[in-house]
């Protein structure tokens, strides 16, 4: 597992060539957050991942991620983490997979302590777990959402 001192670029840096092994993990001991190095899928909503978007796996391959939960090549029910910055299609960069994450897209009805899943009805979004979705849970809510923003304690993503 890498640390921040292993990076040659800011953690928000993206590029078309890999700087690390795809799937590599990084632990920031000061923030207690964990990140994974991924590739943005070839076709994502708005042509890029945006900070705060929830992400799913993609048929492109292991450690490919997508914000498109219900169409294209995204595998909406398979959570992969939360984007921390923009990553354009086919570019490589870091996403968050552990610790407390700032999520920017909820359905506006998330309560404190709710279990969270990807929202297959809204690209990049999350929603409260419904009965039968238990295996999709990737975190729980620290406090009720404010508008569409919420803080999520991530779990089970690495």
């Amino acid at each position, binding site marked *: *597992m890498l640390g921040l001192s292993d990076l040659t670029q800011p953690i928000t840096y993206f590029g078309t060539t890999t700087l690390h*092994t795809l799937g590599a993990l990084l632990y920031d001991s000061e923030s207690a957050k964990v990140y994974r190095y991924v590739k943005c899928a070839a076709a994502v909503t708005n042509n890029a991942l945006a900070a705060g978007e929830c992400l799913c796996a993609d*048929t492109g391959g*292991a*450690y490919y991620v997508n914000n498109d939960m219900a169409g294209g090549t995204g595998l909406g029910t398979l959570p992969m983490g939360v984007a921390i910055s923009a990553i354009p299609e086919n570019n490589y960069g870091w996403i968050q997979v552990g610790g407390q994450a700032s999520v920017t897209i909820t359905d506006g009805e998330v309560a404190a302590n709710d279990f969270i899943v990807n929202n297959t009805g809204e690209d990049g979004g999350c929603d409260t777990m419904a009965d039968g979705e*238990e*295996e999709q849970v990737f975190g729980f809510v620290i406090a009720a959402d404010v508008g569409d923003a919420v803080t999520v304690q991530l779990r089970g993503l*690495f």
Partner: protein
Amino acid sequence: MITVINSTIDYSASSAAYDLGTLYFAGTKAYRYVRAAAACTNDLLASTESVCGDSGGVYYVNNDFAGGTGLGVTTPMGVAIGTIAENYYGWIQVGGVATVITDGEVAAAEAIVLDASNDGDVDTMADGEEEQVFGWATAADVGTVGTIMLRGLI
């Protein structure tokens, strides 16, 4: 959590070289140091077998899902990466993409659980088994060989 070990990852021994439960990260994968239970199916854990918890203690693991001291499908612990004989210590995989033994009917992107009917194997999650999920298939299995993205085991 450690990032360096002083033996090969598939080395096992009758005495512990690390604290039981220690995590080791290497590349994209994570491993946990465990003890094989006193009574396992075929008297050992074999590479690519999935394992559950065991009543012997914390971080004891077993490939026996339906009998003996294995705690069964509700307690997934990881995937064996080498042979670990009964009562021996060694590493199992708990993070990253792992090779497993399936029932031969796993499709890509399916959520995966331990197979209650076949020791050491995995199966597709059925309704009501959601809390047992410990990974998802990255591709359809080939015969009974599957690859899964592990989750929730660390």
